[in-house]
């Protein structure tokens, strides 16, 4: 539908009317520009949060306090978590949604382009506020990214106000992003693009967007209550004033558990796009994939208290949350089985996106297994708040969510730039990441089972050997990401071989119908989907 002539016309159109330089990026309402902004922002935040992880791993390299004091260590674990969740993973997925959702459903742009601009441009301010709080007297937030009261209220320092404000801005940004995705998908699908024809990435993002709208206000409520408890004398979480500190955890995890799925459902979508392409075979069980995603999303609202088994809940509640949590493994298992069935009797090739996707399937599933183990309440009493939990959520978030984002970048980057990236560098990036990430996170299972608690700056001697290896893995994984940075800079300079519109032999979907690089405006005339 978009001929070369049209493309030239669009580019001219753009050159004549759009501002250039920094103003192009500040004022842009184009979904592709905003997608690029989100992705670069997420990558910068990924490196920033990663640098904090390096501080953590350097301190934990051997027993004793060497590099940082415990209070600063706690700030590092807190801000590392906040940045990786709200600054790296979520904006990266929003960036991918901005780029790909309109192109996948045959829409010319996002439905609400000006709000799109705003939802991105408030994000850098949120993180500037958060990061600048680290430089205040007394330092930034030091109560863990879960900011349990009363550690975050009565016992926190004054920078808590900045933390609350920045979380509010992040939440507003996420909600606007989510509204945009829903409105776009509901209203701007090309003729013939029925719901059950939508690519899985679009489906998973649609469901994710509903989760975001449901729970980000809950987070906003939680931080507001923390703010008023700390500064305005309320007692939501203070037993002395009739409140309950455990209620904070109920509210936080009512947000926090769906949040976990917010960070993994789009990843499922990405893998469901990539595996069929390189298996040259349609996705197995498309409908069951959609239903599984929806059931995971629904179940995610009734499992929150599995994060709180040790808080002293009634037996009935412990049973309920154990069983509900175990149930989630059923639809999640269906997804993994479907990916394997998609590969079965396909015609497989192993390009870089597929390498990341395969690593995702194996390593995410390992994270799923430890998740199932954590669901068993009596055993969770032993696992809870140890490195076993740290291993678990880093398997699902790093080798899960982040590997899927990298797979997505390697999958769609040629479509964005029109050039094939440096495949040798990409393979180096993959293998270095794969080996180091397992050296980093796998031994954490063992130190956790052996009894090492989370969030401690110093540990007893029995854990020394493993922590050394974990730190070495951490440094190697951090350095491996610089290969990715080099690759991205080369790609943005438009170096490399030009690619065809389809890019990958087995690629199916509307995004592969437009030329590479994708013109500034696509699908001004909607395509017709058969």
């Amino acid at each position, binding site marked *: 539908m978009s001929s070369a002539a049209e493309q030239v016309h669009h580019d001219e159109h753009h050159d004549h009317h759009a501002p250039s330089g920094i103003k192009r990026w500040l004022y842009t309402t184009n979904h592709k520009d905003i997608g690029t902004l989100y992705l670069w922002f997420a990558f910068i935040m990924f490196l920033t949060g990663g640098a904090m992880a390096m501080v953590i791993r350097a301190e934990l390299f051997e*027993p*004793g*306090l060497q590099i940082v004091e*415990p*209070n600063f260590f*706690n700030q590092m674990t807190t801000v590392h978590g906040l940045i990786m969740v709200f600054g790296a993973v979520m904006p990266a997925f929003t960036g991918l949604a901005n780029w790909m959702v309109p192109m996948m459903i045959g829409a010319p742009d996002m439905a609400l382009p000006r709000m799109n601009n705003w939802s991105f441009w408030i994000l850098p301010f949120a993180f500037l506020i958060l990061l600048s709080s680290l430089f205040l007297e*007394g330092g930034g937030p030091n*109560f*863990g990214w879960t900011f*349990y009261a*009363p*550690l975050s209220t*009565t*016992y926190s320092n004054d920078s808590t106000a900045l933390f609350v404000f920045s979380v509010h801005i992040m939440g507003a940004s996420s909600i606007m992003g989510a509204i945009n995705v829903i409105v776009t998908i509901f209203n701007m699908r090309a003729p013939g693009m029925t719901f059950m024809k939508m690519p899985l990435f679009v489906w998973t993002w649609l469901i994710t967007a509903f989760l975001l709208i449901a729970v980000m206000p809950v987070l906003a409520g939680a931080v507001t209550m923390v703010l008023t408890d700390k500064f305005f004398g309320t007692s939501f979480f*203070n*037993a002395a004033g009739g409140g309950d*500190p455990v209620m904070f955890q109920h509210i936080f995890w009512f947000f926090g558990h769906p949040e976990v799925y917010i960070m993994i459902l789009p990843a499922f979508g990405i893998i469901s796009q990539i595996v069929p392409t390189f*298996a*040259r*075979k349609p996705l*197995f069980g498309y409908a069951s994939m959609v239903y599984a995603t929806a059931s995971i999303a629904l179940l995610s609202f009734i499992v929150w208290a599995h994060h709180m088994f040790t*808080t*002293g809940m009634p037996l009935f509640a*412990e*049973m309920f949350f*154990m069983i509900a949590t*175990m*149930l989630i*493994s*059923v639809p999640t298992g269906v997804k993994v*089985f479907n990916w*394997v069935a*998609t*590969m*079965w*009797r*396909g*015609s497989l090739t192993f390009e870089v996106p597929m390498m990341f996707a*395969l690593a995702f*399937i*194996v390593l995410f*599933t390992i994270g799923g*297994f430890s998740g*199932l*183990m954590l669901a*068993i309440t*009596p*055993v969770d*009493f*032993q696992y*809870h*708040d140890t490195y076993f939990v740290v291993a678990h959520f880093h398997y699902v978030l790093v080798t899960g969510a982040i590997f899927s984002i990298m797979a997505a970048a390697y999958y769609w980057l040629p479509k964005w730039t029109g050039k094939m990236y440096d495949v040798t560098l990409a393979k180096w990036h993959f293998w270095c990441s794969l080996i180091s990430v*397992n050296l980093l996170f796998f031994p954490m299972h063992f130190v956790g089972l*052996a009894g090492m*608690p989370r969030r401690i*700056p*110093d*540990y007893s*001697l*029995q854990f020394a050997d493993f922590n050394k290896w974990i730190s070495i893995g951490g440094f190697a994984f951090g350095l491996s990401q610089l290969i990715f940075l080099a690759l991205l800079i080369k790609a943005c300079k438009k170096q490399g071989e030009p690619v065809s519109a389809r890019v990958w032999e087995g690629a199916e979907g509307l995004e592969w119908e437009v030329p590479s690089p994708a013109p500034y405006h696509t699908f001004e005339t909607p395509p017709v989907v058969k």
Partner: protein
Amino acid sequence: MKKGVLKRAMAVLALLSASALAESNGESMRLNLTKGVTDISQQVYDLHMTIFMICVVIGVVVFGAMFISMYLHRKSRGAKPANFHESTKVEIVWTVIPFLILIGIAIPAAKTLIAMEDPSNPDVTVLVTGSQWKWHYKYMDNDVEYYSVLATQPEQIHNKFEKQQNYLLEVDRPLVIPTGQKVRFLITSDDVIHSWWMPAFAVKKDANPGFINEAWTRVNEPGIYRGQCAELCGKDHGFMPIVVIAKEPADYQNWVDEQAEIQRKAKEEEQKLLAMNMSMEELMENGQKVYQSTCAACHQGNGEGLPGIFPALKNSPVATGDVKHHIDVVVHGVSGTAMQAFGKQLSLKDLASVITYERNAWGNSTGETVQAKDVNAVIKGQ
């Protein structure tokens, strides 16, 4: 690619099975969950191994199918893609089978959970109170109570002395409980949330300020067991270990009677102290010790505090101003802040000496001494 992934998978499995086997090799390099020393902790261990093995088997099947497919169905081997993409039968099978497996795990898990959550009919009850960053134990059936704090020297933590065997896992006064009897723990907190965790008993329960949680154990073997606080509770969260000594019931009874006697005598001594005056040197010497063990974690050894978090005492209005106000702050704490009420934590002598020390150290030269009777007057509200 395929070889690499296969190798990794093998390595992963090898590590996993190593973790299962290495357990028997003793304490030094434990890689697996402890079996512990109670019937409950043994059940928990068995559940852990069951679910772990189920995961390994599922992993072998699923990853096995994936790797077989990656080997057999490669384009480079000339594989032609099939076109199937749906099978309701298969979908039902792999929904129902996991479901049945889950029911199989849930039943024994529920049984163990019900047993763990039944603290009724205890033989001994101990009130466990967490505070930043120490544990307090109070025997509800005897007049015995005390604080239990980290015993590792700061010099070991700051790498000036060599680290000893029980680095960070040693306390000045361990909790003592009898073997073979049902010991109930009532767990609460004075400030933020802590979590009392003893891996060998499979007991981990949060200490919530203003609420009391219950847990219980029945230890089969005498011994010394070590654990740690498991919930982030501020700066020194990593430095509040738990040590429990389990003694034969007769030994336990002797110990608890002895402690009750010691504590009764100490209270008598304290009353005598009210009539005496201690010298400045005595007060300063004892005060420095108490300050280092009790106050320095927040206000720092040099009295300068941590700006923005813990206030300085050096040149502070409290430590150089009205002495009654100073005593009041130390004895009753400051509500809404991390400043604890030390009136119930320290003896009159220690309170008097530490306040004297704070008023005369680091250039705070008030020259005043504070005596036990001055502190007692504030405590009694005079």
